């Protein structure tokens, strides 16, 4: 019995190892820019399966919309743009394998991922391969990677949370704040950024709780917070987990207002929490709604026509990022590597999120706005 079990386990281990490495090609040397004819190959790496797949789905739609618009107008220099879609499952290990794969398959640039931890894991390989990458992540850790090939299509957590703290503490005068964040790449970034914003205002959170990324039961954490009776609870976790926290908090009788950044403004968060439970949630976001200006209206209409669903922040971010990449490809005459990275950095672009102007850290936008959830919809807050 023991021997058989041991064999079974070793077979399992081997299988897992094979599965995990299966995607990486041996000898991933390649020429990034390559040939001058045929379609321009751009890779989109995002979670298309797993708990973060809704992010991946939105990103893909935003990127697809931008690329189809360019292709309809004849592409770049007469060449069509081809989007290769890769599934990182929200897993950094899968991500690093995909980084080698897109390098060996001659992709000129990469869009994604929406998960900071995955992007951070991929960054050194992409830097070495000189493949520019426009990510939707927002963790300050992305800036710390210090890669000249890594760009962000939105603000970092520092901007989101500074704006949020300014609204809650400075404008509303609320000082009784509790924090719940997860220990993943995104949650850690949010935790540090919001705590820093609070500390600089002389506010100490009444509770600072950390949860794991796949935790399902928050009763211990939430009961502890309930006893502190905070006015506002800050959420530093992704859509589904934040939604579960809010749902369980309301079941425990917590009436405090919730606050957070991008994930708390999404339909997934609303559905998971339940619209009634999420009512009043304060959201810091660079893209509050589809009718803030004409560009957003046009984008939302095109998005609706193409995918038959309402556009939201992540689609808008990916759309902006892809537009910037394509503009840079055009201005650099479809260069690859360093030249393309420089062209992206030089691109000034008026996007859905605002006016992009990249600094040397790869961040192009430094403002967000405050919205609140009213009657199940995210609307701009009266300031």
């Amino acid at each position, binding site marked *: *019995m023991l021997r*058989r*079990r041991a*064999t*079974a386990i070793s*077979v*399992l281990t081997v*299988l897992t190892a094979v599965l995990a490495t299966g995607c990486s090609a041996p000898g991933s040397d390649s020429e990034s820019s390559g040939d001058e004819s045929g379609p321009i190959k751009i890779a989109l790496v995002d*979670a*298309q*399966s*797993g*708990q973060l*797949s*809704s992010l*991946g*789905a939105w990103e893909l739609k935003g990127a697809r919309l931008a690329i189809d618009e360019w292709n309809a107008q004849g592409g770049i220099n007469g060449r069509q743009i081809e989007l290769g879609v890769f599934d990182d499952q929200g897993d950094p290990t899968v991500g690093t394998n995909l980084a080698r794969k897109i390098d060996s398959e001659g992709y000129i640039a990469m869009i994604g991922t929406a998960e900071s931890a995955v992007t951070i894991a991929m960054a050194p390989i992409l830097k070495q391969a000189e493949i520019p990458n426009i990510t939707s992540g927002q963790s300050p850790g992305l800036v710390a990677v210090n890669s000249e090939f890594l760009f962000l299509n939105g603000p970092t957590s520092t901007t989101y949370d500074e704006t949020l703290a300014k609204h809650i503490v400075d404008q509303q005068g609320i000082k009784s704040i509790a924090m719940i964040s*997860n*220990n993943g790449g995104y949650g850690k970034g949010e935790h540090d950024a919001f705590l820093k914003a609070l500390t600089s205002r002389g506010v100490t959170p009444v509770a600072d*709780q*950390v*949860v*794991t990324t*796949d*935790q*399902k*039961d*928050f*009763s*211990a*954490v939430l*009961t*502890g917070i309930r*006893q502190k009776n905070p006015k506002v609870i800050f959420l530093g976790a992704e859509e*589904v987990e934040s*939604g*579960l926290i809010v749902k*369980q908090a309301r*079941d*425990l*009788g917590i009436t405090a207002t919730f606050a957070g950044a991008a994930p708390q403004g999404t339909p*997934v968060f609303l*559905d*998971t929490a*339940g619209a009634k439970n999420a009512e009043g949630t304060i959201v810091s976001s660079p893209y509050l709604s589809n009718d803030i200006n004409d560009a957003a209206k046009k984008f939302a209409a095109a998005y609706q026509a193409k995918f038959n669903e309402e556009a939201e922040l992540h689609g808008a971010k990916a759309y902006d990022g892809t537009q910037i990449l394509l503009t840079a490809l055009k201005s650099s005459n479809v260069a690859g590597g360093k030249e393309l990275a420089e062209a992206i950095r030089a691109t000034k672009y008026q996007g859905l999120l605002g006016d992009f102007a990249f600094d040397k850290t790869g961040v192009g936008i430094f403002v967000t706005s405050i919205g609140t959830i009213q009657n199940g919809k995210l609307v701009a807050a009266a300031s």
Partner: protein
Amino acid sequence: MQVFLQTIVGGVSLGAVYALVALGFSLVYRTMGLVNFAHGNVVTVGAYLASTFYLSTRLPFALAMVVAIALTGVIGLVIERVLRPLENRDFDLMLIGTIGFGIVLDALIIMIWGATGRAVPSPVPSAPIELLGLRIRTYDLVVLAIAAVATVLLVLFLSRTKRGAAMQAVAMDHEAATAVGIHVGRSNAIAFMIGAGLAALAGGLVGPLLYVSPALGGALGIKGFAAAILGGFGSIPGAIVGGLAIGILDSFMAGHFQGYGELFTFLIFTVIIMVRPTGIFGERTVNRA
């Protein structure tokens, strides 16, 4: 004290779900000596089926659950039928076979329902019950009651019916069981069917508590498996105790060690298993692997 008790309440409701998952693992293991690695994915299928009938076809929740359990049970039968030629020939291949089925089911789920998940509203919308400063969700009580009924029915089936007794006999000694005229294949098929049905029950019940996505079964499967091992793999009471223990343990560790909660849950689990390798209710009769 309030935090302590509320933490137990929170742990118990998920613990009941882990227990149901553990029951499915244990039932198949005690009958066939096989760990069904597809079990977690079967939970996901059950969760999707139940939520589809509940949300899309607007069946009452109870009816949606029954349909989902029946359909998922059929999936269990299919898995057993495909693996049957390997029974008693190559055990390792059977294990790999269940892993394969897990991957297939995972892919099918994404093909049918998409990679993004769905939130299931609670079928019992009434406000939580307040008791001595504790708040207990009414739906949690429903989950506990259903889990208890399912366990009692299973125990009655195994101990009081002829078919159940035959399954016990196969579990103890399948050659002797064959000699006295028990159809081993049929017995295995029933084990797989009931196991899958329990998985669907767990998945359907957990839907309104959590978020139904393709990743749902993975997390529940690992905790359920740990629960089965902790209680004593193959033992029915062990699965129940193990499930509740893992649920409560997890809840407490998350409260105390925050981001490292999961780590401590499994550390304690490991220590218990080192001290008592057969688990709490370890049975020695199952010895076919």
